[in-house]
């Protein structure tokens, strides 16, 4: 069983990324279940997508990942990655973007929230297992690509790059062709490059 959790702030594109992963797993012939956060939380709240894949022929029961069972957590925002750490398996990998999204509550507070503080906290948390933390400088990468909308594809490619999922970049490319609107396929494929 492979459990991938995608977490971020409403509107960041976790849902499509979860679909692409599910498609990639389906093309491998694995049983797949996913679950989404839809509704009020999409308005700037924390959102989580669960992707569960029976890569050893198992049937997936629950669509939700249990605590301590996520093989990979893909965080579109560092604080959301930190928030979901209780779900990470002891050998699991956290792939996180660096760009923070500051909620209004934090802007109002005396001490504003800064992503760099959380990133340092994450580095401390993974001090004994630095290979399990992958920090993706999304600002830099997306500037080079020229479009912030491909954040999800970049993070998926990085997650696959960790080698923790028995999927390769060709599987990802194929799934993108199947899931993404034709007009955006090339843009996303370039992002993988």
């Amino acid at each position, binding site marked *: 069983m492979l459990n991938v959790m995608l977490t971020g*702030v*409403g*509107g960041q594109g976790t849902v499509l990324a979860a*679909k692409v992963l*599910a*498609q990639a797993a*389906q093309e491998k012939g694995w049983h*797949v*279940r*996913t*679950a*989404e*956060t*839809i*509704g*009020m*939380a*999409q*308005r*700037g*709240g*924390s959102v989580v997508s669960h992707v569960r894949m029976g890569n050893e022929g198992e049937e997936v*029961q*629950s*669509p*939700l990942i*249990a*605590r*301590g*069972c996520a093989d990979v957590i893909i965080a579109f925002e560092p*604080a959301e990655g*930190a*928030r979901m*750490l*209780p779900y*990470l*398996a*002891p*050998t699991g990998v956290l792939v996180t973007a660096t760009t923070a*999204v*500051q*909620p*209004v*509550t*934090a*802007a*109002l507070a*005396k*001490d*504003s*929230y*800064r992503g760099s503080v959380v990133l340092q*906290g*994450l580095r*401390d*948390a*993974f001090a*004994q*297992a630095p290979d*399990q933390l992958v920090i993706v400088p999304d600002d830099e990468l997306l500037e080079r690509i020229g479009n912030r909308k491909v954040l999800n594809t970049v993070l998926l490619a990085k997650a696959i790059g960790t080698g923790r999922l028995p999927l390769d970049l060709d599987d990802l490319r194929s799934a993108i062709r199947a899931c993404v609107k034709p007009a955006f396929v090339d843009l996303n494929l370039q992002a993988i490059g």
Partner: protein
Amino acid sequence: MAKKLLMGNEAMAHAALEAGVRVVAGYPGTPSSEIVETVAKLRAAGIAHGVHVEWSTNEKVALELLFGASLAGARGLFTCKQMGLNVASDALMSLNYVSVRGGLVLVVADDPGPISSQTEQDTRRFAAFAKVPVLDPSTPEQAFRMIQAAFDLSERFHTPVIVRPTTRVDHASAFFEVADETFARPVPEEGFERDVSKWVIFPRRAYEAHGEINERLSQVADAFSSEEPFSSFNEVVEGPEGASDDPVFGIVASGISAAYVREALQMVEERAGRAHVKIPAYRFMQVGTPYPFPAQALSRFASGLSDILVIEELDYVLEDELAQLAGRTHASFNVHGKLTGEARDRGENDVDDVVLRIEKYLGLVGRLRLHLHEQDEDARTASISYEQASELPVRPPVLCPGCPHRGAFYAVKQALLKTPAVLCGDIGCYTLGNAQPLDAVDTCLCMGAGVTMAQGLSVVDPAKKAVAYIGDSTFFASGMTGLANAAYNGHDITVMVLDNATTAMTGSQPHPGTGYTLMGDQNEPLSIEAVLLANGFSHVYHANPLDKDASIVAVKAAIAYDGPSAVIFESPCIQLIKPDEPVSIDADVCTGCKKCITEIGCPGIGFDPLREGPRSGSRGQAFIDPALCNGCDLCVQVCPFKAITFPVPDAEFADLAEDEVFEVVEAEAEESLADAEFDETNEVEESYVDEASHDDGASADSYQGEEPDLSGFDETVGVYGLEDEELFLFDDGAGEADSAESDDDAEKAVAIEECATVALDPSELEEISAAKASEPDGPQSVDQEALTRRLVLTDELNIEEDLPEEGGQDA
């Protein structure tokens, strides 16, 4: 037949279409909305043939419409969220007595948590109350099969049937093979057949029907216990593998909890295996047909058991039924669950919790190791944890960046200032107006209750202004009867209609005010203004919520009126429009006062304590997140130092000075007046389509009066029909603290007088008059004088705000 990843809701839509559904209707509500949307998409794509699909104005309307279709022999699918069934309950309770002809299936999505709802009510209970069979899926695949079974059951027993998924079934996805094309089952040639003894409910008929209902429920319970496909929804498994003893421990679960229990049992077995602990034999059953309770199947299940643990969400429905079964059959099993404190009494279940419950139940506590992956854990001394988890920023849902509701809430707060008021909220995105810093919602109950609660408050607490917010979709769903009540009983309330041209919270569904239907037709949009007028709201003002000063004036004017009044805030939801270029903050000008944040709380504005500038020193500065900002410009109007600026001027007005812009707008309005014709005989057939309702409010605003007074247009006149003191009466006697604000308001009054003009759009007046004249029993005369007022406020109304009073400089 390709395999497709479908959400539970999408799968149920496919299932209904494959079952030949002819009419699909509902009202949006999370987590149910995608069912109707999927049917509409498949119809539009030419995949689903012969189906009629619609968003009805509310759930009651949808269910009654479907019942009509059923009487003509069509299969109908109704969808709503759990509270939607409350709205439709009047129809449901009675139609069950009348009985259905074409299959009638109600998908009622429950929301444990609740994640997007006001209640954790359990539709299984509602089904029992209404005496209607209910199916309770555990997975999207099962939901698919249950929809098809429900249609057959409905026609076999002439009963409506409820399918009750929960959020984790609605919004969970799996791969499905679905039909390439679907065809609605043809309606019998004769269509509706008159039968007064059958289709007309009377007390005598109701008595007979009650007996028929009791009879059929007993037959359905038998079918649930022993017939396929129902018995497959009540599947029983025994474990662990290789157990030699007969089980004495039973576990029963419902819906998604059944999936959690299956997974939890696997985990417990794995962990027991690793710890070399033998776990006792158990028997597990999912009850997928909770009402009428399949007592025979449960009796078989309970045979030989000493205990049954019930894992279910929301109410203790199965737990109650099992306790009754034990009593009725003198069985000796004990029932454990919510009532005994052995399961969560509310909220969602999850695998983690169920593992612990089962371990305890099976007497395994302390005998298994803590972690689920201990072969992995052996490699590490401690698992990875984030130390400062409590310091992570919380993210309650908020109004989107650029959301026009923000401007409306801000205007209401600014218009009221310290005037005592109760702000009655309602259901929709605008419930989020309660969040800091807007803090502009005092109550929220159910669809349409803002308008009516305000009336009760106005009766007993008249010292406070009674203000109600209502969104455009909610307005048509359940606001209108409340409006009529306000006028009829003479309640002094002010209704703020937040018209963003869509049903935003549930994913941008159209409604009567848009005129767009799921069948792809563009019908004439219903006018919110006309509805207000027809319901006796004589003082109706319009405002663009993203124009701060004009909105404040409109709110003041409406609240000043002693009687039912309204402001229609018109600006489209940001999901519907292309965003403007983001604004930016001039680091040389920003003082770090934080006013942009503390006043309107837009997610597009952050604060960086490390930013420095000549005027902010080491205080920090606000910054715009360009990925979030949609250029609504509200913050530009709020910043007291003009530190927030547009990227490029509006192209149309780029080369014009501010007063020249006013001239252009005025000229356009004059032109449109000159073009219009007047016909007092009311024979004009032109339709009233308020095309300008989402314009910036400048060029097309109008005043409808008895006699069009074209001569008045060129003159600058006061806000029509209002005495100046009416506008500002809130500050009367409000105390010393407010005196500065009163002065400020007086200044504004002068500006308003200078700038506000009143224009007239004759076609609107004619249309309303024509509509009234065509109603034989309609009002005999329309008080044209008091029909409506629209304010035309120009950019010249930029009145300087006071400098920030609090917080900023000291931050």
